């Protein structure tokens, strides 16, 4: 589903990703862990196509296509979804309005008919309920004044509405309380299917108890320095990253 080859990327002229190789076949969940500032979010931005994140070398194939040649919204319409580490506030724009526009943009690109206000509201209410997102949140401005945990749930809600094929969860577990973590993680896990794949960025192995990964990678200093099975996450919890940061330095 996703094939990253020798990916180098710069931000503000500084190289952050220094040759990433990573292949995630359809149906698999891969976790990425690593110290602060190692480039995890940068990787997610590069994959999603954020302005200012310049790819200097390498290639990314997504569902057989050249991902890096596509616009941000084209990637999104092709089913790439990023749950942000820090979702931005958009004052004045209600969730209903924003999400309906997004859902219809994606539906349009898939050749599906657009949902009208009533149809969308029905869908949004159902999904919100499943994720424990209060209905009044839909009427509020996007992310505006949301608590940290509320923002994370809202990201999960958007994922559920947009039904992506490949999702990147950037520390979706941070900020969620214990019960919310279970609800959100279970919802994400229920998304697993042979046609979908996931990249779960996290600092804690707890979320991986719910979303059991096929592989765990350690990203340090802009490179993947180790890959293992789900037991690697447990191991890291006790050993930390010292060995890798020394290695990378």
């Amino acid at each position, binding site marked *: 589903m996703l094939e990253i080859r020798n990916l180098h990327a710069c931000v503000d002229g500084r190289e952050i990703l220094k040759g990433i190789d990573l292949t995630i076949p359809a149906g698999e969940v891969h976790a990425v862990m690593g110290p602060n500032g190692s480039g995890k979010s940068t990787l997610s931005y590069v994959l999603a196509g954020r302005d200012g994140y310049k790819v200097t070398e390498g290639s990314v194939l997504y569902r057989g296509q050249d991902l890096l040649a596509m616009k941000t919204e084209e990637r999104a319409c092709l089913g790439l979804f990023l749950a942000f580490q820090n979702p931005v506030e958009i004052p004045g*724009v209600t969730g209903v309005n924003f999400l309906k526009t997004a859902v219809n943009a994606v539906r349009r690109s898939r050749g599906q008919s657009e949902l009208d206000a009533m149809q969308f509201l029905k869908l949004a209410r159902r999904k919100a309920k499943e994720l424990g997102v209060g209905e009044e949140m839909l009427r509020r401005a996007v992310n505006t004044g949301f608590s940290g945990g509320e923002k994370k749930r809202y990201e999960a809600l958007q994922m559920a509405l947009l039904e992506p094929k490949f999702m990147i969860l950037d520390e979706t577990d941070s900020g969620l309380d214990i019960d919310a973590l279970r609800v959100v993680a279970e919802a994400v896990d229920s998304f697993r299917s042979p046609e979908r794949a996931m990249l779960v960025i996290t600092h804690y192995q707890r979320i991986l108890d719910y979303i059991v990964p096929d592989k765990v990678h350690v990203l340090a200093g802009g490179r993947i320095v180790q890959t293992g099975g789900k037991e690697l996450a447990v191991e890291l919890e006790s050993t930390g990253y010292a060995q890798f940061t020394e290695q990378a330095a």
Partner: protein
Amino acid sequence: MDGIEQVRSLTDQKYKYGFVTDIEADVAPKGLNEDIIRLISAKKGEPEWLLEWRLRAYKVWLEQTEPNWGKLHYPPIDYQDAYYYSAPKRKDGPKSLADIDPKLLETYEKLGVPLHERAALAGVAVDAVFDSVSVATTYKGKLEELGIIFTSFSEAVKTHPELIRKYLGSVVPYSDNYFATLNSAVFTDGSFVYVPPGVRCPMELSTYFRMNAEKTGQFERTLIVADKGAYVSYLEGCTAPMRDENQLHAAVVELVALDEAEIKYSTVQNWYPGDEQGRGGIYNFVTKRGACRGRASRISWTQVETGSAITWKYPSCILQGDDSVGEFYSVAITNNFQQADTGTKMIHIGRNTRSNIISKGVSAGHADNTYRGLVKVLPKAQGARNRTQCDSLLIGNTCGAHTVPYIESRNSSARIEHEATTSKISEEQLFYARQRGLSEEEAVTLIVNGFCRDVLQHLPMEFAVEAQKLVALSLEGSVG
């Protein structure tokens, strides 16, 4: 051209008394002088007092100078190089839709203007155009039952001279300011509304229908009077973009609200803004003022300004009656090389008068957007209150936003609050929206509409939808 030349030579010959009778073709020569004003007045069959009023205005205008305090730049306007009465019919006007600039048609189409209206708006002579003529008549019957007068200004001069005489110039005196004075001298038509005591006008009144039937010129005059306890909501007729080759528009709108009356005046202005290079476009110099003359009366101005090359406009409220309320809700969007200098004046005269101002300015491209507002509290306005909220949103790095609030308070019990913010659409917001599948333009439109929400919600329902579409249209090409 021949026609005009002919007229000119005629008028040159017998300047004093010549062309008034000679002109059958409704063609007056270019330029402005007393004779032109007499001609306008005669053509309209106006009473003597109105002609006198026009002439007085003209004399004052000659002594006035064009204001230059606005943050606006434009080449000098040659007032003698314009037609003040029934400009000659364009001989080379478009014959069919195929002759019209496709870009313009596209705009109408996006706005959902029906095809036959699109043709008319674009200036194509179409027979059997408007069903709305009959709509207007149906309207009229219903309004007449309630005693509401809603007619063209010229008609009102004939049918209700006492009302016109009483209220014309009572809010905006003929000598008020350069553009209003010019309008007073040469106005050709406009609308008149009178709502009798205790009557709530059951429908939104709009010039839209009427203007299709009788094309009014560049100097419109609107007068709306709500008698005691009356209510009316009025929509200014630019629900569809007006294609107009006139460079200068100098309209005057006067509102009068008596005891406990309420007037809501909404405008969605989408006149030709000029092209991407800043060529062409309308200069819109408008004087709009409402007098809350009665106790506990209320006037609210809501405007969405997206068109015109230059906008110079300060809808104001004179809060004379005790407990009266003035409101100003404005969205001004400027793109490319558009310039807008707009705002309001709230003059607190009566006791416990209140005013509320929300101004949202959006600039993109190389545009300049200025909010200029005055809140003035006179000594007797015990307990006056004002709240002003001015927000500016910038798209890109080459546009400007300015806020110029003037506050003059001569009563220590007055409470005046002013809050101003300037923000930019952040790259982060755009990225977030695009990551969800929105195109950059969709994202900008959504964010801008969100920014303007506090104002748009004051528009009548059907207008609000249109205004949102307009926001999208006027920002087209502002990103990417």
